[in-house]
């Protein structure tokens, strides 16, 4: 297990959000082995005060991505932020990122200015207030910051979004997904709607974790796992905790599932779950609202969504605390109406 110290607030900005990275050194080692051969020296190009020597080239869901950096020390942490099921590839990348690190006053002490090197793992890189990170995609700056965690999370977020848009193998719908008794429960929704919290509650209550970010639908409307680490917002503070489903006592789904229940919901303080039935058409609209590539390929997306809702019960309601929801949703999923929802 790798523990990252909370970075100091810099210039009055927010604290590092990565309180506890639970991927552990074991997972980093696994990824390191998988990617070791492709973390390669690149043609040198001058950028800042270091040259871009190292790159990670991978493919996820059929979309090849390249990330180049001038700081080899951050590669292990970068690997930790790749999308699930990322694999090395030699295909020409469809998206090129550069992650540049510049420092104006690097400490000569390898432990960094904070000292205490003996307590840090080899993958740990001491924070240095004079390090600046710039993330670019296609030559356009996406983010410039002193916070390595922030830039890695921004990279992860953008990579995910690009894959979701460019993927031809599946249709990415922004949604939380769990498996329950052989069917999927889909929770479409925007960031901040509370779906990760709800997914975590469902996993703790016995559902199988599929994703807290995307429902990846195949052309038959089945959901495939996109089992990234859950990103759970810590109450009342602008921090997120990354954790795996087994940290919640749950398991990760493997097989694709047909959709049994679509719960269109968002957290509202004090709300009671009073669902109204959605017609298949309204369920499709709710999914369209969260489909990343709907504008790029509407025809195939509509066909996929039609399949996805064809045997699903769709409900809509605000909800209260996530801890109250598993029993309610499991009961709805178990007590489904016949596939013809009118009867």
């Amino acid at each position, binding site marked *: 297990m790798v523990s990252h110290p909370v970075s100091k607030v810099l210039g009055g900005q927010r604290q590092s959000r990565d309180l506890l990275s639970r991927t552990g050194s074991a997972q980093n080692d696994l990824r390191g082995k998988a990617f070791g051969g492709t973390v390669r020296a690149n043609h040198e190009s001058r950028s800042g005060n270091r040259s871009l020597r190292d790159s990670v080239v991978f493919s996820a869901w059929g979309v090849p991505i390249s990330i180049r950096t001038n700081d080899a020390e951050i590669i292990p942490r970068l690997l930790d932020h790749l999308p699930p099921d990322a694999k090395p590839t030699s295909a020409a990348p469809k998206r090129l990122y550069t992650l540049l690190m510049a420092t104006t006053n690097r400490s000569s002490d390898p432990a960094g200015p904070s000292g205490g090197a003996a307590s840090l793992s080899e993958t740990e890189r001491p924070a240095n207030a004079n390090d600046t990170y710039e993330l670019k995609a296609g030559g356009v700056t996406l983010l410039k910051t002193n916070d390595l965690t922030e830039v890695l999370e921004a990279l992860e977020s953008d990579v995910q979004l690009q894959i979701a848009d460019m993927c031809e193998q599946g249709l990415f719908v*922004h949604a939380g997904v769990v498996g329950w008794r052989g069917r999927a429960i889909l929770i479409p929704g925007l960031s901040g*709607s509370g779906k990760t919290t709800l997914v975590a509650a469902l996993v703790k209550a016995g559902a199988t974790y599929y994703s807290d970010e995307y429902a990846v639908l195949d052309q038959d409307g089945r959901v495939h796992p996109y089992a990234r680490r859950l990103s759970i917002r810590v109450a009342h503070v602008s921090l997120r905790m990354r954790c795996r489903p087994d940290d919640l006592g749950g398991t990760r789904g493997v097989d694709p599932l047909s959709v049994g229940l679509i719960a269109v919901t968002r957290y509202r303080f004090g709300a009671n779950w009073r669902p109204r039935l959605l*017609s*298949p*058409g*309204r369920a499709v609209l709710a999914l369209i*609202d969260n489909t990343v590539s709907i*504008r790029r390929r509407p025809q195939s997306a509509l066909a996929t969504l*039609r399949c996805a809702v064809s045997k699903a019960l769709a409900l809509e309601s605000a909800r209260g605390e996530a801890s109250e929801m598993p029993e309610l949703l499991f009961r709805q999923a178990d007590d489904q109406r016949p596939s013809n929802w009118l009867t």
Partner: protein
Amino acid sequence: MTVVLPVARTENLHLEQLPDELIVYDTACNKAHCLSPTAASVWRNCDGQKTAEDISVQLQKEGIGADKEMVWMTLHRLSKLNLLAEKIVLPQNAILSSRRDLMKKVAAAGGVFVVLTATIAAPTVARASSGGGVLIG
């Protein structure tokens, strides 16, 4: 008196038929519409050959209890959604019932499909990630 023969628009539209409803995706403005069975049937019968009364007769044959007034209301809605080849202007006295009575007619004809149409603006890539969609109508 001008006879209105509505024509359904066909260009830049992707259709997906559900068991009862019809999803229409308009690529010209990136909006997705869900048409109830009544609205879908009215739209399908907009072939440039039928008047509102003719469409009403056809719907009765299909088992949809929509009178001429309801057809006019649906045509007006479809026109506003830009799903007709040309905008239509409601003739005077086309709709005489109150709004409440019209809603009752819609419910009676549509059963559980109490809403004739629902529309959503399709999200951009960035917005699909951050959310914030608005259901229009």
